[in-house]
């Protein structure tokens, strides 16, 4: 897996080259509410059949971006294209895009069945077609038994499924999901993640999924667009973004990491007590080293080519199969290490890692 171990390039995050003609193309979109800049210069492509996650903290602008695609907000600058069609000039009801809302937004005065039929009814499809498509959609989300219930009589998870069926029954080209799982409890959420992903594979519709939960993003997505304070930090597959984070922020937001400040002189990296070889230009540099890429070294000589450092274990946190250990290595260097659960208390340890696992990342500029 050389792509994981080589440092990320210095290039700015650009849309991942996907299929030759993307389904949706967001070009230089910017948005501000008064003086509050919410999005700046966002460019992003979504391929046919792709599951793209927009990941970001609250206030990063991810929901605003979704609302611009759906048509509930208009951008101050930039364009949104769907194939040959300029989407951002259309009112929401003319876009072949459907949304699953965070709070589901089911119509309280309509039954489950009528909710699902809504889009087909307003499009004036013939009644027999509506009936068969609604039945099919309800079967797909396993809600047939509740077809005649009002939304207030079914549980949150069930409302979630109805909202999904209500959107999918219209066979949109693109489905937007605004934190649809955030209101569910942890177990149901994990179950829905799997269901949603397999449903997306089955129907083959492109999904844009907005979440603040990095684990959710990792589990479900083909690609993740990491948004930070209104700018795209990195757009890549979950493996790539985890293995090769482009920035310190990406490295810290997706999973946990050790950030090492270092200085490079003549192909040698110096970071506190650590020294290793790297074929990089001279100057200050920042590295990300994942806890699972550090090993507890056995006695004897260091493995050839690996970096070794000794330290004292200051804290141990049990996580089931693995354990996180905080090791003080002197010179202010603290490393967090993920090891298989050891079953005992550790004292002095020797740590080892391969220099190729220290990934060069860009310092993320401070943003408000």
């Amino acid at each position: 897996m050389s792509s994981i171990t080589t440092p990320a390039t210095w290039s700015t995050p650009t849309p991942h080259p996907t299929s030759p003609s993307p389904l949706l193309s967001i070009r230089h979109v910017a948005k501000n509410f008064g003086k509050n800049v919410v999005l700046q210069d966002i460019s992003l492509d979504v391929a046919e059949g792709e599951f793209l996650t927009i990941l970001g903290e609250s206030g990063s602008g991810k929901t605003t971006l979704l609302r611009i695609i759906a048509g509930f907000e208009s951008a101050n600058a930039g364009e949104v294209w769907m194939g040959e069609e300029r989407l951002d000039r259309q009112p929401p009801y003319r876009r072949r895009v459907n949304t699953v809302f965070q709070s589901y937004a089911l119509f309280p005065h309509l039954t489950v069945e009528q909710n699902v039929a809504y889009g087909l009814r307003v499009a004036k499809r013939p009644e027999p077609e509506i009936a068969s498509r609604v039945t099919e959609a309800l079967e797909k989300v396993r809600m047939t038994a509740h077809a005649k219930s009002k939304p207030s009589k079914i549980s949150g998870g069930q409302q979630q499924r109805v909202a999904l069926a209500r959107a999918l029954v219209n066979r949109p080209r693109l489905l937007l999901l605004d934190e649809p799982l955030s209101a569910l409890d942890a177990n149901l959420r994990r179950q829905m993640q799997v269901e949603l992903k397999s449903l997306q594979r089955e129907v083959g519709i492109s999904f844009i999924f907005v979440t603040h939960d990095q684990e959710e993003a990792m589990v479900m997505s083909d690609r993740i667009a990491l948004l930070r304070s209104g700018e795209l930090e990195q757009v890549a597959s979950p493996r790539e973004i985890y293995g090769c984070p482009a920035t310190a922020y990406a490295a810290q937001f997706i999973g946990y990491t050790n950030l090492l400040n270092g200085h490079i002189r003549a192909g040698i990296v110096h970071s506190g007590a650590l020294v290793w070889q790297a074929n990089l230009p001279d100057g200050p540099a920042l590295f990300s080293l994942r806890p699972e890429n550090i090993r507890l070294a056995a006695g004897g000589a260091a493995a050839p080519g690996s970096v070794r450092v000794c330290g004292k274990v200051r804290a141990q946190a049990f996580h089931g199969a693995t354990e996180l250990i905080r090791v003080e290595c002197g010179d202010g260097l603290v490393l967090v290490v993920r090891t298989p659960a050891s079953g005992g208390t550790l004292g002095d340890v020797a740590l080892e890692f391969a220099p190729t696992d220290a990934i060069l990342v860009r310092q993320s500029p401070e943003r408000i």
Partner: protein
Amino acid sequence: MFSRVYKTTVTLPPLLWVTVFLLAPYLLMFCYSFWSVSASQTIVHSWSLTNYGQLLRVDVYWQTLLRSMWIAARVTIFSLLLGYPVAYFLSFHAGKKKDLLYQLVIIPLWVSYLVRAYAWKTILGSDGVLNTLLQYVHLTKHPLEFLLYSPFAVVLTLTHIYTPFAFLPIYAALEHIPRNLVEASHDLGATPGQTFWKVVFPLSIPGVVAGATFAFVLSLGDFLAPLLLGGPSGIMISNIVVSLFGAAYNWPLGAAISFCMLLLVVGLLVVSERLEKKWSFS
């Protein structure tokens, strides 16, 4: 949870108030409605249903009651037709001017009822603002007589007075509609018109029912507007009750008519509450 002393102190005053000022007078009125007046103008405390029989037998009573209901019905329809669009605009499209416009709709309620009724008198009279204007621009040669002292004047004035009462519950109902339902409707391909008829209007029905009930019940019992602007043809049932309790000195018959109106209004309130419940989904 709360001590008995506390419960008693908070329950007793309203209970007393309701008993002394509502239940007791109603009971007294109910008793009166079975009594009668002797030739020497004294109340005879003998029980009979004569008064209720008279209400059905004498044409002017039941005809006036029907006319009052017809006037109240027209006032209700016009109040809704005026109040709903204003409430809808304020709730959905007024933006930053919402609070100001809301106050403007409410302000007429601060002005005395009498002043507003008299204002219409000066507008609608033979030498009034409207007739003078119509003649000045040569639309009419003579003052239009039907403007004042007619059911028209009563309906117009009552509509003006009770529209805010219809507006308020409608506005409250519209404000309660989650805006993401409107977005969801647009998202599913519904035009603004379809969205209004399929989502917004059905969800505002409890407000419409409450507003209609206010407008109907309040104008049905009104006696000042018909007194000031109604003339002989614009008389309403309350005017008859007033005169029966006053100049005519027939309290028992007045009480019987009042009791029938009370039953009518209570019936309406029960129906309107059922309707509101049926159409509320929160």
